[in-house]
């Protein structure tokens, strides 16, 4: 077998290394650039009813026109545990975990929204 002359790094190796570096950079951007949700805001009839830390573990009763809406907060997430509204959309939304997620209970006029450390990308949300 003749001794083939070759360099330590072949042209394709540079390509593989560049792809690998891109993957790492992309992964770092994806993993570290997210704004983790820290607080939950509870609105009643369009007014801020309460703002709570998501790390707290508690259940809160929010009185509305139809009755009490139960908001549950546990381990960095929040949900509407119970609501008197007929269609139960906000209860079916389940646990909210990401910044910006909302659950709206109508017609009980109650909603929750998760917020992070950064300012919102929009000024207000009306419904």
């Amino acid at each position, binding site marked *: 077998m003749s001794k083939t002359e070759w360099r330590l790094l072949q042209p394709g190796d540079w390509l593989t*290394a560049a792809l690998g*570096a891109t993957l790492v950079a992309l992964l770092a951007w994806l993993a570290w650039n997210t704004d983790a949700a820290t607080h939950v805001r509870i609105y009643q009839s369009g007014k801020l009813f309460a703002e709570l830390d998501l790390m707290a573990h508690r259940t809160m009763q929010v009185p509305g026109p139809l009755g009490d809406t139960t908001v549950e907060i546990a381990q960095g997430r929040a949900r509407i545990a119970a609501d008197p509204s007929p269609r139960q959309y906000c209860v079916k939304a389940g646990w909210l975990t990401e910044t910006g997620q909302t659950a709206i209970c109508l017609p009980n006029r109650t909603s929750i929204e998760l917020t992070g450390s950064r300012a919102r990308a929009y000024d207000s949300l009306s419904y």
Partner: protein
Amino acid sequence: MTASATDRVVTAGVDDLRIARYAALAIMLGVVEAGFPSPLPGVKPGIANIVTLLVLWRHGWRDAAWVSLLRIFGGALVLGGFLSPGFALSLCGGIVSLAALAAAQYLQRRWFGPVSLSLIAAFAHIAGQLGLARLWLIPDNGLIRLAPVFFGAALVFGLANGLICARLLKEHPTP
């Protein structure tokens, strides 16, 4: 004469001896590496993988798979981690890595050297380990925040191991 059912003779062929020699070398490198302190649990250079790459380059994927798996089992027995979570992570990483190498071995050697194989193996290894860790040991999505660190280490060490392997192969193209 009929062969006795109880008196069986197993002779090691040339292939067996060669695989055993490489596996012993890989286990030794694994033991040496275990003596080095690691800055972060789970971040290791994986110098034993240089042997796997060397075998893959010289003797093909089948031999490389034997050496890699023997190294994982043998290393665990020598270091005392057999069937521990760390062993499971190592085995899962090794299997995923071998699967990736099974595909990567067909890359044109004119263009892709051992460095490419090393990088692919290192990335697959860490992907396998993180996958198992997420499914079994730490079932939490927060694990993704550590992923860039591990993949960054795979890039650096994959490159270093690949260069060492390329250098060895350049000086000794045939065993």
